[in-house]
């Protein structure tokens, strides 16, 4: 075997051409450079956080010691978890309903179910603000019930995503499997549990990931629906940034990024990355 043996670049082997590598590199920089800068500057030993003044981890201690920030983070995670659960159930049921049955107004429902995705967030936010005011939604409940309004708002814009993902997965379902299960004695419920749910599982995981991340970083709608005692993480970060961009904000954001990455990783591992790719 010759030391410098190189197989020639095949016509469709774009990943080995120079221009393609440069292009991919440029895209990577464009996508991730801001995040990398944010993470690096979370270790910056400077209050103003404009120029590098040396390495420190004290802003992490400060961020974790900031009760308001931690409380906001816990609120955000709670809302995201609740909204994800509710969206999964609602979204899956809606998808199965639209896929499986024929009923009056199906076209209209099919068309409007994704409206919360299309309508500008600011409109949705204002709508929720007015709606909760109009129905006199109580703002003085104890935790976690005080998060009710925000959670409901989040469910509204999260579950259409679940419906979309699950529906596209359902399109590839072989109805003969359903018939086979029934033929072997299964009831409608057993067919749903034993055949349909396993088939759409990758879509459920994808939908859950989407819902969770969408809910976690939502700012606009949350801003309009949060009460004085129900600050979420993005809203808190915004209020901190209004005074000055300190490394504390960077540190908190870095922690959030790491948390999201870990959660995504676990979800993908639990299912196998291949199954996620199969969803589309």
């Amino acid at each position: 075997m010759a030391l410098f043996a190189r197989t020639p670049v095949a016509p469709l082997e774009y990943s080995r051409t120079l221009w393609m590598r440069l292009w991919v590199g440029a895209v990577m920089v464009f996508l991730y450079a801001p995040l990398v800068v944010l993470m690096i500057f979370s270790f910056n030993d400077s209050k103003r956080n404009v120029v590098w003044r040396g390495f420190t981890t004290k802003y992490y201690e400060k961020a974790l010691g900031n009760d308001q920030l931690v409380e906001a983070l816990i609120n955000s995670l709670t809302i995201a978890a609740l909204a994800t659960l509710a969206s999964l159930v609602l979204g899956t049921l809606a998808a199965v309903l639209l896929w499986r049955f024929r009923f009056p107004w199906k076209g209209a429902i099919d068309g409007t179910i994704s409206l919360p995705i299309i309508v500008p967030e600011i409109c949705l936010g204002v709508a929720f603000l007015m709606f909760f005011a109009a129905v006199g939604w109580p703002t003085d409940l104890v935790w976690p019930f005080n998060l009710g309004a925000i959670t409901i708002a989040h469910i509204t814009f999260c579950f259409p995503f679940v419906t979309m993902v699950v529906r596209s997965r359902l399109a590839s379902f072989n109805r003969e499997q359903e018939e086979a299960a029934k033929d072997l004695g299964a009831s409608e419920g057993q067919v749903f549990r034993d055949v349909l749910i396993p088939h759409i599982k990758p879509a459920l995981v994808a939908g859950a990931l989407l819902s969770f991340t969408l809910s976690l970083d939502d700012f606009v709608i949350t801003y309009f629906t949060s009460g004085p005692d129900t600050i979420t993480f993005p809203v808190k970060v915004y209020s901190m940034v209004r005074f000055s961009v300190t490394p504390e904000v960077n540190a908190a954001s870095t922690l959030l990024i790491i948390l999201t990455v870990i959660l995504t990783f676990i979800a993908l591992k639990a299912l196998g990355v291949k199954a996620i790719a199969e969803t589309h």
Partner: protein
Amino acid sequence: MTETAKPIIQIQNVSKRFGKVTAVDNVSLDINAGEFFVLLGPSGCGKTTLLRMIAGFELPTEGRILIDGQDMAGIPPNKRPVNMVFQSYAVFPHMSVADNVAYGLKIAGVKGGEIKDRVAEALDLVKLGGFGERMPDQMSGGQRQRVALARSLVMRPKVLLLDEPLSALDAKLRAQMQFELSELQEKVGITFVTVTHDQDEALSMACRIGVINKGEVAQLATPSDLYEYPSNRFVADFVGSVNIFEGKLTLDEPDKAAVDCPGVGKIYLNHGVTGPHGADVWIALRPEKIYLHVPGEGKAVRAAAQDAPDGYNFARGKIKGMSYLGDITLFEIELESGARIRVSRPNLSRHDQEDFTWDDKVSMHWRADSPVVLLG
């Protein structure tokens, strides 16, 4: 067929309409317990709809279906004593082979130990012993079909329904599975009802065949009766290959008959037809029942053909087409009138295919009991 044969499935005046389309049109037939019954027909003839009505996935628009004497009206698929092997096999992809086979038993509430025994038994039956832990995506199409078979057989149904069971397999495997399915059916003694569009499949496996055309039963017969005594042009043409000539019945007596076919000549038969005199009829003649000769063998041909009381079946022509298939050679022969006849000839020795070639003048004869007279 024994005299005690009793129908396990009774289809009585069943019709199925999808909107304006009639898929099944007033079908009545009985399927006997323990037989291998095949529904044969071209695609879209309604045979699969009939099968799905037996399984309960479609409901008859009219008529009723009885299984083991019990009317199936209002009984959903999961409560019927039949199981089905689907065309796509519909093996559950997220379950291991053993779990697939065990699924029906689990639903039925069979105890764990018994499930294990019966699953192992069923897998052995379809020659998949030891494959229990595999996942379906690690198996070939043929193996997946065996899983589907085992999954149905393990339920010990009264009737096993198979929807185009061999259509997705390659030719070699299909031939092997035809034998295996027949063998399996004899072993387990369950009534099999199979749907297919493949006549070879039907002829090789069935006890009885129901030929379906445009939603109606065209003929119900054993494989050899179906082939040798087709009752109408559709069956004669659909099952096997055939020459069909139109003609007039000019002679019809108890022991002889003759049909005058323009372009072919008079065709003699050594039995009566009991059709109206002078009626338009059709003659069906299978290509393998025609003997091919080099001209000049006249005397021998005449002697061989001399089996009809009033004449003998003889024709002359020229070879216009030939296709060598190994075991047989197919000839397309143009008669002097321009009519064409298909003849097949077995290659009994290694050089038989060299006996004839394009544009050779040939003579043909066939026995007086070979042509079938069709009235419709």
